[in-house]
């Protein structure tokens, strides 16, 4: 069952420098009980996308639809949204240091959330629930720790407290925005483990926003790769990692220093992501792409199904068979480039790619 269906979402911010087109025509769905990983670099629009769903981007021009449990979130007013936020959809932010109020006790912050949505719960009941929640997320001696201030918690414990808060009203969907980025490796493993277990127990759907492909490989079911405000590729996890179609996805995977390639040279994506105020023509990835065709300079590709079942789709003009990291796919890509690259594309390629590796794009 589709819990959340987002269709053709556009978000534009108007700034003194011009219109920032943060999200452009993104569509995706989240099924109940599943985890969608949204991957992208800084400025790819992944955070703006989810914040817009919850009405957290005031002042932005928003169009499109986001149907959650039968209602369009984008059409709700502030009061209606407030009833959804926290209760039906909750958020875990990246930085547990700044997302807890330093002057209030951790327990108070959880009970406030419970009582804000349901005044009939007594303070005492709410505190009992807070203690239960802290125990569920693995805080030792929760009866005492519930009275601690955030500074008495370590980074990992604060993130656990944030997760307790996100769980407090048994939401249908949790949006975790870089939940482990600020944490150390061993603590990150604890939190990922916790999220996995909680999700298995409660059947909550999860949207996990991250730049870390390793975290996605661990816990996502489906993956959406974003680039310059648009979905570049969408697929079940294994397809993204083992037969990527979009050159950006492929580039991301290849630029990770993995154990197999220790000591050898890395293959970075040249250049840097474009400014969202001044986007390139055609496919927004073309200035950094190693497989530019003439068509890429003028026409922006939309998502096209790559696999027959339609679950794997990619926004790239390369032939649909050219998915994968193997030799065959590479030959097909090379052949397409030979046929489809006229003078215009060759010129872009020479200027941007073949020059100094990854130098001056701006």
């Amino acid at each position, binding site marked *: 069952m589709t819990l959340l269906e987002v269709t053709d979402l556009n978000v534009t911010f108007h700034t003194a420098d011009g219109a920032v087109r943060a999200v452009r025509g993104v569509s995706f769905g989240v099924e109940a009980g599943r985890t969608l990983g949204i991957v992208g*670099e*800084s400025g790819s629009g992944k955070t703006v996308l989810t914040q817009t769903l919850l009405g957290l981007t005031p002042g932005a021009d928003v169009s499109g639809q986001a149907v959650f449990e039968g209602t369009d979130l984008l059409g709700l007013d502030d009061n209606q949204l407030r009833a959804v936020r926290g209760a039906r959809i909750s958020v875990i932010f990246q930085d547990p240091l700044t997302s807890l109020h330093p002057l209030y006790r951790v327990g108070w912050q959880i009970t406030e959330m419970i009582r804000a949505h349901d005044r009939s719960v007594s303070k005492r009941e709410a505190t009992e629930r807070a203690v239960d929640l802290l125990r569920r*997320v*693995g*805080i*030792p001696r929760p009866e005492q720790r519930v009275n601690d201030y955030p500074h*008495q*918690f*370590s*980074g*990992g*414990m604060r993130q*656990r407290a944030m997760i307790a808060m996100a769980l407090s009203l048994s939401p249908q969907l949790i949006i975790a925005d870089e939940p482990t980025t600020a944490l*150390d*490796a*061993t*603590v*990150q*493993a*604890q939190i*990922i*483990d*916790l999220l996995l*277990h909680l999700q298995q127990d409660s059947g909550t759907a999860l949207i996990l926003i991250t*730049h*870390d*492909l*390793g*975290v*996605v*490989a*661990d816990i996502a079911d489906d993956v959406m790769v974003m680039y310059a405000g648009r979905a570049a590729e969408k697929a079940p*996890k*294994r397809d993204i*990692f*083992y037969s990527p179609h979009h050159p950006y996805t492929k*580039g*991301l995977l290849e*630029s*990770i*220093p*993995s*154990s197999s390639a*220790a*000591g050898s*040279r*890395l*293959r*970075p*994506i*040249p250049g*840097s*992501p474009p400014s969202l105020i001044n986007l390139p023509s055609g496919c927004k990835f073309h200035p950094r792409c190693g497989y530019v065709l003439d068509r890429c300079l003028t026409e922006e590709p939309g998502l096209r199904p790559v696999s027959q079942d339609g679950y794997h789709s990619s926004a790239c003009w390369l032939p649909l068979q050219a998915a994968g990291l193997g030799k065959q796919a590479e030959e097909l890509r090379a052949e397409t480039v030979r046929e489809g690259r006229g003078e215009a594309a060759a010129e872009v390629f020479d200027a941007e790619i073949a020059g*100094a*590796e*990854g*130098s*001056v*794009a*701006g």
Partner: protein
Amino acid sequence: MSAADPTDDVLVRVDNLVKYFPVRSAGLIRRTVGQVQAVDDVSLTIPRGKTLGLVGETGSGKSTLARCVAGLIPVTSGRVTFNGRDITNLSRRAMRPVRREIQMIFQDPYSSLNPRRRVGAIIGDPFVIHKTATGAERKRQVQELMERVGLNPEHYNRFPAEFSGGQRQRIGVARALALRPQLIICDEPVSALDVSIQAQVLNLLSDLQQDYGLSYLFIAHDLEVVRHVSDSVAVMYLGRIGESGPEEAVYTSPRHPYTAALLSAAPAADPDAAASRQRIILTGDVPSPIDPPSGCRFHPRCPKAQPLCGEQEPPLEVKAGDVPTHLTACHFPVEAGENLATATAATGTAGGSELS
């Protein structure tokens, strides 16, 4: 690692380095009430032209160690030898010529460049300070450096804000390179960068090492990045080295349970590997370095801990079957094929222990 190496191959030797920071009470009379034992009895060597990777979590003391090596902060005790010369706690004046040889690249390319100064002036600063080039000659050299690190020399007069994160990190690299140092200390040089840009900077660093015979002390929390760039690796935990040795040995057959846990915790971008891997989930957080645990500092979180571990500090030594440069500080080192994941399964998800 320390005793076996012949001295001529060694650029930097650190012997029994200790760095404590006093903890003072509040109020007018700020009495010392404790010590943060940031680095406690650490010895290591950096061979000429090679890279030593330093791995550890927040508070493990890796950045403090780097600052001691660079002579940026005085050490409490121990010795730092550079090129055969003792450079521990030198006066500012005596340190100055040494600083030409030891440069740093910092983590945050946004805050480590002065936003009000032009890029040419930032990169040219080392020439001004050490009076090695002036006027047109300085400009020529700066532009040469910019070209070398992949920046457009025509952008000499631009401000840092006009560059992207990866380009700013290149500016930091150019500045560090200006005086042709022998050692560059890279403190989390790519952690603030996006994945696609990170690889560009790592490639640049490895090119420069080959061209100029540079030695790197490379600090990062990303184990794959450290593995990629390092010849040898040292793993720090709470101010001590838990394990050190050649990159291959430490990564493929870790002997310290902490190293094994770190390696298993790092998520690999490979769903099949992630599904089949035995992940060791440590309980709790890193304890406070003000009051570190007795004996082995890792024992409260260690899946293999025995009563002995709480009583006696294990020495950093070669374990049976390891190469002579592979050192481990553990009473009960991990054996090949041993599964630590099951040892922690009982307490796996109920982690989060006390802060001391």
